[in-house]
């Protein structure tokens, strides 16, 4: 406990010092990057289009990455099944639409169902194991990764499903720049979701309870916070964010198939690590950075041919981690010996 105390104090103190300095460097870099994107977009319509597209895809990565971070903050494990859970909830939405609901009715119903699934998952499958062994809990999520894929393929088959495009197929033309309404829609939906989650944490008693439970569970229990319940809600919220990611990924890929979220999970991991696993803001920013970078690199760096994209992304990720092992926004835990 002393170590954790020390690191927190260290962290607080360091806000003004070296680590905090680092954070300001990062923030400056991000502002500079945003400025560069703006300039580029003004000069080239292709650049502008790709930037919007990259931001939209990045928003999807960021949403799933945020889900991963919420789970990590609550339980200190990585949920390997986060992407498959997102995919499964998207299929639930598909089914609801088949049964007659409109897209947005199905959307919100699915978010509710996702919340329930997430909490049930934590209570029934994770909590019993997490006390004994963290690695066992991680393996449970790996098992779920495989199981959920099998169940979805069983129920709905492996062929393609169509979902009505939530934002239509309109394309706006601003000068010589074509921007699909889809990308704007994705950005807006994800932004709203992230803001709502942030508001929950920042302004509500529940959110305060969840933060306390994540940071200092023993003390929180003492002041009457039901830590167990907070953890379950955390997982539920993560599942909701995952569902948002899935429901926004599907229209971007035009069709629904069981492999929908698999590449996205990979990018979400990268985004979460890039941003720092304990930092919700980092996850979202990491996602956006990753989305834009990948989209622009595919276009402007021909040496990175299609099969090198993924290795390239990870090479960059590794490079960042070597410089800042706890991610861009992560706080380095200093261990007092």
């Amino acid at each position, binding site marked *: 406990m002393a170590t954790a105390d020390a690191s927190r104090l260290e962290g607080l103190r360091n806000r003004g010092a070296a680590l905090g300095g680092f954070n300001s460097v990062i923030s400056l870099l991000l502002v500079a990057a945003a400025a560069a994107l703006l300039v580029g977009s003004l000069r080239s319509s292709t650049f502008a289009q790709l930037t919007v597209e990259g931001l939209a895809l990045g928003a999807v990565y960021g949403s799933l990455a945020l889900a991963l971070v919420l789970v990590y903050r609550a339980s200190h494990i990585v949920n390997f099944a986060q992407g498959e859970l997102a995919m499964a909830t998207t299929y639930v939405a598909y089914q609801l639409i088949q049964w007659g609901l409109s897209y947005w009715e199905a959307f919100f119903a699915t978010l509710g169902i996702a919340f329930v699934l997430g909490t049930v998952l934590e209570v029934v499958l994770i909590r019993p194991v997490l006390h004994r062994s963290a690695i*066992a809990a991680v393996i449970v999520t790996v098992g779920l990764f495989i199981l959920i894929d099998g169940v979805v393929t069983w129920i709905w088959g492996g062929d393609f499903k169509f979902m009505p495009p939530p934002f239509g197929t309109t394309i706006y033309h601003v000068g010589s720049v074509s921007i699909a309404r889809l990308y704007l829609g994705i950005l807006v939906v994800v932004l709203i979701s992230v803001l709502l989650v942030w508001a929950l944490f920042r302004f509500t008693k529940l959110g305060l309870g969840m933060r306390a439970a994540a940071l200092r569970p023993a003390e929180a229990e003492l002041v009457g916070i039901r830590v167990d319940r907070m953890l379950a809600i955390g997982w539920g919220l993560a599942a909701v964010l995952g569902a948002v990611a899935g429901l926004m990924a599907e229209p971007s890929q035009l069709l629904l198939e069981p492999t929908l979220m698999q590449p996205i999970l990979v990018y979400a991991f990268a985004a979460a690590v890039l941003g720092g696993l304990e930092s919700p803001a980092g996850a979202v920013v990491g996602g956006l950075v990753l989305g834009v970078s990948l989209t622009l690199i595919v276009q402007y760096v021909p040496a990175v041919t299609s099969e090198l994209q993924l*290795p390239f992304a990870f090479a960059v990720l*590794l490079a960042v981690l070597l410089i800042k092992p706890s991610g861009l926004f992560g706080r380095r835990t200093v261990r007092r010996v």
Partner: protein
Amino acid sequence: MRHLPALGSLVAVAAVLAALPFLLSAYHVALAAQVGIFFIAVLGLNILTGYTGQISIGHGAFMAIGGYTTAVLSRDHHTNLVLTMVAAFAICFVFGVLVGLPALRLSGVYLALATFALAISVPQLPLKWSNFLGGRDGVQTATTPSHLWLYGAAWTASAILFVLAWLILRGRVGRAFRAVRDSEIAAVASGVELPLYKTLAFGISAAYAGVAGSLFVLATNGFAAPDEFAVVLSLELLIGAAVAGLGSLWGILVGAAFVALLPTVSSSVPVIGSAHGQDVVFGAAVVLVMLLIPDGFAGLLAQVRRFARA
């Protein structure tokens, strides 16, 4: 595992292994060989994760490197298959050290995710250098061993590598590994050269995975292709290590058998059966096993021993 199981049980295991080919059909001998292959890989991963506490979800990548080493050497130079396995061991050791070096800067979940990245990226590489590495159509060895050869090679290699692991772990290196796992700070304070031992552990475990990869390709009729080394393979290795638990030879056997046999068996389950079976049954089994024995088979054995003693 630094304590060898009783000599009696070792002899019994050896006897059973020697007798199996005569008792089982060729198909089952091939399955038994698969268990041997995963035994080697899980053993290697155990050294890394169990003994130095570094989590890797990327050892499928080392299996790929080892497997392709064998395939390419055999295809181009008709190298003796056993020699290719030795080459795979050496090459993967080097790669393991290379990965272990930057890994020093990462810990816990960051390391796990970085190695996960490796598991995804490495199988993409044959698509890039498709002339040399066969692309999606794969690389075929010049000779294809029989089920019996495979079985013999897999279990002989298992035995050799098991003894090697035992020798490493009972000695100074093993003590250093355990010190690193238990407390890095204390280890450093006691003069353990952290970087050396952590990197060494990576190298050794990667080398083991490389040999397993060689055998894995040979078991696939000598055919190496990217689709064989998808991320799921690395996840299966991790599952195997978790099911094995820490510190028990029997655990490693059980863990290896679990991941080597269960997916194939899953497709024969009635009702769910082949049409839907594999993922559903295997996934459910993994979840159930972890819920029931979170400390793996080794933990279960320890519990049983305690119970028996009480």
